[in-house]
């Protein structure tokens, strides 16, 4: 089976053509760099996404956060639920862990801006 | 039982209601102004051409003709007393062929009969000398040097603030639902309570017929005539210096092109009689018509500089004249109805006219200590560099810019929110300070202004209203 997709690895948006067999990518074309190949391989087998959002701080203002790496796509809304229920105490620094091992993904949610 | 007793209850806080309130505040009378909206000037007074008409248009002998010319003459003094921007920029009524010159002459004669000064019919060359961007097809023009431009909101607010300073009460967000005649006057029922008054003045704009009918036999009908406008950025403000009219028709004065006191360029209005008196929507056809027709009188209009379009409703009475009188059947009920154009111009004269009617119902005794002047919000944009520097030294909030397009500071916005009858909505702040009226239309400053409104009212950002 052939799948066409657009690489989201960077804003280039390469149009990829992926040959898929048994849920695995056997060949990728159209990519400009290695990110495209990796993206296509994971997209057909186990798609993942970065999640970025905000957590509330004790000052009443939101603080931006992100998952340190991509998480399984189907977990996005669970991750969001967890992030929404999180409050951080200021001050915080970039990289501080807001939620450790979010939803059992093994990925931490970390602060993305110095605040407070 | 009514909670509070007044001598006069004014229904409607538009320019007519507020002008009347200010006039009556010179006398020892207790006055309340009641309006359904959360701010003054939310109806017809808000969305119009903002012109102080010279007065050549109305039929001689009508109230419109009389009050227009009188109102125009009062405007210089009033603008100084009440600290509002007013510019006598003059007007040109243009025609497109030799056949139409008699129509200009007719307008001129009418104007002379109405008492308008300085009218002159110009040739194309003479008109071009003072207005270079007239369209190539323009054949001649009637010049009216006494025509002017004003900020309708500033005028209405100034009347209201000055009336307030002189003891008039305002009850806003208070829609009138009924009026009952009693032995010694009226009881006005509204959303927030009941008010008894010896005299009720109906200044309710497009709803004047409805208010009238609450307590008297229907004797007139008000039609809402919608007019759509386009407002262009200040970079387009110099396209014309004078207000450019086309020859009037039975539906009104046609599409005009005019600078505004804020330096923008205003085009419009269309004229469509509509059934729904809440319908202030703009339409694709309307805006297309404004564009097409404005180009008939003025060339080089940079239509791509449009920053907003809006529509307003004119309150048109059946016979076309203002209806200002005490009701024949219900004594003490004074109607100020059908106040369409030139209502804005006429407002100060209407106020005097109504004062005289009130004087026949209630004793008018001049108040000692009446404050004739009112100081508007100090706008940085109107100050010299030195004056700005001094003001910021005294009040640092004037050094914090909030609206970048119109250069409005936190100090000005705080003043707009905190002064009596202060702004409670984003649009209220906008109309008082000009914030959000620039090119970005509030894109950058509205979150900051919302935060200031939220803090003042003790509400969350989400609860801050744009209008109403």
């Amino acid at each position: 089976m052939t799948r066409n997709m657009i690489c989201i690895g960077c804003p280039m948006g390469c149009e990829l053509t992926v040959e898929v067999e048994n849920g695995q990518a056997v060949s990728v074309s159209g990519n400009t760099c290695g990110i495209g190949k990796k993206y296509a391989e994971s997209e057909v087998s186990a798609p993942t996404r970065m999640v970025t959002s905000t957590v509330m701080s004790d000052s009443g203002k939101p603080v931006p956060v992100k998952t340190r790496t991509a998480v399984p796509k189907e977990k996005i809304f669970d991750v969001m639920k967890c992030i929404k229920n999180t409050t951080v105490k200021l001050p915080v620094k970039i990289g501080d862990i807001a939620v450790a091992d979010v939803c059992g993904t093994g990925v931490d949610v970390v602060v993305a801006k110095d605040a407070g | 039982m009514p909670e509070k007793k007044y001598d006069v209850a004014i229904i409607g806080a538009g320019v007519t209601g507020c002008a009347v309130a200010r006039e009556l505040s010179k006398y020892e009378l207790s006055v309340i102004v009641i309006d359904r909206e959360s701010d003054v000037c939310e109806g017809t007074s808000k969305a119009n051409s903002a012109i102080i008409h010279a007065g050549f248009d109305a039929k001689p002998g009508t109230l419109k003709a009389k009050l227009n010319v009188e109102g125009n003459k009062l405007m210089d003094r009033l603008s100084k007393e009440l600290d509002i921007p007013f510019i006598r920029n003059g007007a040109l009524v243009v025609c497109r062929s030799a056949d139409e010159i008699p129509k200009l002459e007719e307008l001129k004669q009418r104007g002379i009969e109405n008492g308008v000064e300085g009218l002159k019919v110009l040739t194309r060359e003479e008109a071009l000398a003072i207005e270079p961007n007239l369209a190539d097809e323009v054949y001649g023009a009637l010049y009216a040097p006494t025509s002017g431009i004003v900020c309708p909101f500033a005028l209405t607010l100034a009347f209201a603030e000055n009336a307030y300073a002189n003891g008039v009460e305002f009850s806003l967000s208070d829609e009138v639902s009924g009026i009952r005649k009693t032995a010694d006057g009226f009881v006005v029922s509204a959303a927030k309570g009941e008010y008894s008054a010896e005299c009720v003045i109906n200044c309710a704009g497009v709803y004047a017929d409805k208010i009238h009918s609450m307590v008297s036999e229907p004797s007139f009908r008000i039609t809402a005539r919608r007019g759509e406008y386009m407002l262009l950025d200040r970079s387009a403000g110099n396209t014309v210096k004078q207000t450019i009219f086309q020859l009037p028709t039975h539906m009104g004065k046609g599409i005009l092109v005019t600078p505004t006191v804020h330096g923008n360029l205003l085009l419009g209005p269309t004229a469509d009689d509509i059934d729904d008196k809440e319908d202030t929507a703009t339409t694709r056809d309307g805006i297309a018509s404004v564009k097409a027709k404005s180009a008939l009188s003025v060339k080089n209009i940079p239509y791509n500089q449009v920053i907003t379009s809006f529509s307003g409703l004119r309150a048109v009475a059946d016979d076309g004249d203002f209806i200002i009188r005490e009701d024949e059947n219900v004594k003490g009920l004074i109607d100020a109805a059908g106040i369409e154009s030139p209502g804005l111009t006429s407002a100060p004269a209407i106020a005097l006219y109504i004062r005289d009617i009130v004087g026949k119902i209630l004793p008018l005794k001049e108040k000692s200590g009446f404050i004739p002047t009112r100081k508007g919000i100090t706008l940085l944009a109107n100050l010299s560099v030195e004056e700005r520097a001094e003001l910021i030294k005294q009040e640092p909030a004037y050094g914090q810019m909030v609206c970048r397009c119109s250069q409005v500071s936190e100090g000005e916005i705080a003043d707009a929110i905190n002064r009596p009858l202060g702004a409670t909505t984003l649009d209220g702040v906008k109309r008082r300070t000009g914030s959000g009226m620039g090119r970005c239309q509030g894109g950058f400053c509205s979150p900051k202004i919302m935060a200031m409104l939220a803090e003042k009212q003790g509400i969350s950002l989400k609860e801050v209203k744009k209008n109403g």
Partner: protein
Amino acid sequence: MAEHISLAVIGGGPAGMAAAIAAYDSGITDVAVFERDNELGGILNQCIHNGFGLHTFKEELTGPEYAGRYIAQVKERRIKCETGSTVLSISPERQITVVSREKGLRVIDADAVILAMGCRERPRGALNIPGFRPQGIYSAGTAQKLINCEGCLVGKEVVILGSGDIGLIMARRMTLEGAHVKAVAELMPYSGGLKRNIVQCLDDYDIPLLLSHTVVDIKGKHKLEGVTIAEVDEKSVPIPGTEEFYECDTLLLSCGLIPENELSLTAGVTISGATNGPVVDDTLGTNVPGIFACGNVLHVHDLVDFVSEESGRAGHNAAEYIKSHGKKANAPDIINITAGNGVRYTVPSTVDRANVESEIHLRFRVRNVYKGCTIKIVSGDNVILSKKKRISVPSEMEDLIIRPEILSGADGGLTVMIEEGSV
């Protein structure tokens, strides 16, 4: 008495910071950055999504993280940053009037000025959408600021007009926050945003993208009740009978960005009708000596990495200008760069061939979607550069690098053009 400074940078977003850092590193240390907000970073502070920095830092950062990298560099160099300071005007002699709460109103003379004020969104009024003007209509960036910086979710049932990147990003953002985004309507037959944003912001969440559609009516006097969307023909005119009503409490507008050049105009800077930004030469200098421009105030970028790179060059060139007191090494030999077939504009629009030291970035946008096309730079009858492209789209800025030696072969002006492919 006016104060004096070597270099004034107007704006403390990504462009201003990169320019200030580069100027400092080129030997001009008497630099001040004037930022109207109370913190550095500009619009990046509200762009909490990721995708920034792949070119610059070879890693994928969020907006605040990307800004943080530059803020750290500014701080390391102890570059003077005046936050909460709004520049009100700039004279052609480079005298700037600046106002702040703490320091009041000041007049400052600068040897050079870098314009880095960024851009703003096209508001509803400029789009002439008919209908009412109720609460609930926001430009996408304003909604982004309210949600991401103020924690205020503006609505629950959302329609987005325009498929610019901010609109796409906000479609996802509002969905993640629990809102229901019903559709994104785009007037053009192609999207105004990056492809990857369509995939990960719309497709991932099954949000329909309605190409060749627009909002034709807005309902609700005080609060937004819904919008009517219709299909448009090839002239962008709504097709009768295609109207469909969408109930919603929020309409976001993502219909283009406009460089914010009101200040530039006060200085007498010439603005291009194509970019709405200053007309610049290869040093990113404007027509006013000593005034340079970079970033989104110059032309709207889609990648912040390109903004930083460009602004670094502006900073370096401004420093060189100051050091040489505005004098050029060689007598100028200026050639024009013209936007030819399929090209909307080029930045720069002139190059001084006699004073080019290193390679020139020629940036431009194409007018349409071109597949299998060739980008060419021609001079007279000579093709001096030719580059094949699989695809070129209006939403993605092109960046051609021209080596100085190529210019010497040019005969008169240069024209950049698209040669359409067979597809």
